[in-house]
């Protein structure tokens, strides 16, 4: 790796490692609790916080913005811990989805009042992992470690509620309080990670390693190891791909995550099914179908492309003025003029322009062919131009003719 490459990708690489560490773990909880979109909603709350801070003139990258978004995210955590009901008629996922939509809508309404609104919203989505600073990474490492330790000591309670909430209720635990603590720690993590990595990347970091590892094993420590391993490999590879093929980093890592998940799922499907040959055939059918769909869309695209090209506005060809002295510099104009020996053409050119400087040049050439006519024109300019420099030039041209 060259020095420059390290300069640019180094911070992003470490940031990804740190993100993988905490998100793979939290993702397991999220999947088990069936609250997949909680991170999106919390992230959106955090983003809303940043946005509201922005309205007060706080730049989205400063410490002030951090506290704003953290505050809002904790508010969101409170909402989620309150929205869990023992006998749920309304799934919690509905509440979470709704919260997300509301927070997003309010963020757009708020940002509309601030300049650069659109850019800011876009940035929240894709993040700017490429631009993360070492100091930010250091802070993140501290915060995430604290959350990690917090979870390590309280792991039994959190895991119990995640895996078997009915049992937790039966034990007389205050599920709501523990939920709030869980979501609050989650909010702390999300607030930081959304700021640097963006909503998309954070979502994928949470969900993909968790799904993959849960597909493979039921043992927690194995799940964790698989999640971390996968996260590291995918992040590094995704970042490298984004570098080699010159793609935006965040989305490249996201897309690569998706691809790896698909591959793992396919491999598991083949390994676990009773008849492997049959499974392979199914995959083959799937591939063929996919290929057909691709070909179909391609043909469709080509068709419309050809049609639109037909309709495309064509600029009328500019009629080439053989002679427009106003578009030439002095040297070219002199050269062109010296090739003309038709007095009437020169006279026409003279009257076509109002630019006194060009008139002097034309009159000068005219004077070479017909001294009398040229001198008359120069004299006219010298008398009538309001500009001293032009008058002087006309006089000089007259003197040149005299010689």
């Amino acid at each position, binding site marked *: 790796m060259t020095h420059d490459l390290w300069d640019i990708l180094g911070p992003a690489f470490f940031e990804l490692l740190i993100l993988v560490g905490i998100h793979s773990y939290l993702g397991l909880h999220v999947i088990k609790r069936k609250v997949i979109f909680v991170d999106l909603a919390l992230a959106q709350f955090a983003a809303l916080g940043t946005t509201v801070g922005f309205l007060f003139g706080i*730049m989205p990258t400063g410490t002030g913005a951090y506290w704003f978004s953290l505050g809002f995210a904790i508010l969101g955590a409170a909402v989620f811990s309150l929205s869990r009901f023992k006998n749920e008629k309304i799934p919690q996922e509905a509440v979470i989805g709704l919260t997300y939509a509301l927070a997003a809508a309010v963020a757009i309404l708020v940002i509309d009042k601030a300049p*650069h609104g659109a850019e800011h919203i876009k940035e929240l989505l894709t993040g700017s992992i490429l631009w993360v600073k070492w100091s930010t990474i250091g802070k993140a490492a501290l915060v995430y470690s604290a959350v990690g330790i917090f979870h390590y000591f309280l792991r039994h309670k959190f895991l119990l509620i995640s895996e078997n909430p009915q049992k937790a209720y039966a034990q007389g635990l205050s599920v709501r309080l523990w939920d709030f603590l869980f979501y609050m720690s989650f909010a702390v993590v999300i607030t930081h990670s959304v700021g640097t990595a963006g909503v998309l990347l954070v979502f994928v970091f949470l969900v993909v390693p968790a799904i993959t590892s849960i597909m493979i094993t039921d043992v927690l420590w194995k799940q964790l190891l698989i999640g971390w391993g996968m996260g590291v490999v995918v992040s590094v590879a995704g970042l490298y791909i*984004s570098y080699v093929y010159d793609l935006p980093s965040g989305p490249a890592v996201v897309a690569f995550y998706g691809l790896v998940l698909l591959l793992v799922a396919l491999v598991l499907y083949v390994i676990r099914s009773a008849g492997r040959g049959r499974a392979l055939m199914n995959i083959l059918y799937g591939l063929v179908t996919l290929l057909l769909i691709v070909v179909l869309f391609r043909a469709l695209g080509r068709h419309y492309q050809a049609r639109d090209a037909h309709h495309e506005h064509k600029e009328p060809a500019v009629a080439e003025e053989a002679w427009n002295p106003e578009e030439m510099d002095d040297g070219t104009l002199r050269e062109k003029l010296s090739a003309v020996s038709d007095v009437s053409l020169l006279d026409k050119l003279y009257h076509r322009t109002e*630019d006194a400087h060009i008139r002097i040049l034309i009159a000068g050439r005219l004077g070479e062919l017909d001294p009398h006519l040229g001198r008359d024109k120069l004299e006219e300019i010298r008398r009538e131009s309001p500009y001293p*420099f032009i008058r002087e030039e006309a006089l000089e041209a007259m003197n040149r003719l005299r010689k």
Partner: protein
Amino acid sequence: MRKPLWTLFLSFLLLQPAMAAKKIYVVTTLSTYADITARVGGERVEVHAIVRGNQDAHFVRPKPSYAVMLQKADLFVSTGLDLELWAPTVVDRAGNPKIRSGQPGYVAAWDGIKLLDKPTVLSRSEGGLHIYGNPHITTNPLNLKVIAGNIVTGLEKIDPASSAYYRANLKAFRDEIDRRVFGDELVRLMGGTLLTRLANQGGLIDFLQKKSFKGKKMIEYLGGWLKEGMPFRGKTIVAYHKNWVYFQHLFGLRVLDYVEPKPGIPPSPKHVEELIREMRAQKVRVLMAANYFSAEKVHDICAKVGAVPVMVPMGVGGAGGTGDVFSLVDYWVSHLKAAFETVNTKKQESEKR
């Protein structure tokens, strides 16, 4: 005693809407166009702009208020190129046939300006490509004279009776621009038309250096923004987006590369790496960007190569002290000049050590 007062009040009520109705209601896309319109239209127009000076004119989220403004509009001024891509939608929504493209109430600001950067290959894969040429025409103050002329033509169509008034304002505006660009002395000697033509052709400085008047080289008579910009003439900068081509053309500034690899597409790691390497190799120490781009990214790149960021508003009112077109250009020129001065002092300091 009571009656006259009462009638006076009533007559005010009746007169006021009548007086207000006489004003031409103009809506412009850019705040810069609004300022120009206010200058040439004087007290006979009421102007509203849609895009604020610190917003990206490419991406404005259409709001109901725009449609309401356009509904009332007698005249609508937009660049007319693919800068304000949202404009046709908003105009359609407003349902005001007077201001549709091609109608008397529509002014295309670019008309008569020689466009730069005309594309040779037409493909959307080249990013936010401008098929007609670069639409950021307001960055060259000389273009503002043409734009003002187009706006006056539009005003005359609606209010032919005031033609002389608008023409007088237009002349005053053009004179002022000439004097600000070239300096009073040079305009007096040579006239704005010739100076503008030479500057647009790119040969003005050469011309001034070759010619002399009363024993002094013409270049010594140069004043205004061009004089102020002499310290950075011929110098190289890096820009964020292709906003500045017309400005560069006037001030003889070169651009090594853009932070955006293609217009409108965010930078990828490889591109940033190359950019930084290039900036180091070529010793480019100034990065210029419109102030709606991410300050963080600009400062980050600058920090890596020890460059000075110049973040300026694109339009009138986009930062403190850019309340009109003149102070806006002042702001661009003085900030760029200051950046090059900082670079020079830095260089001298490091040489001393």
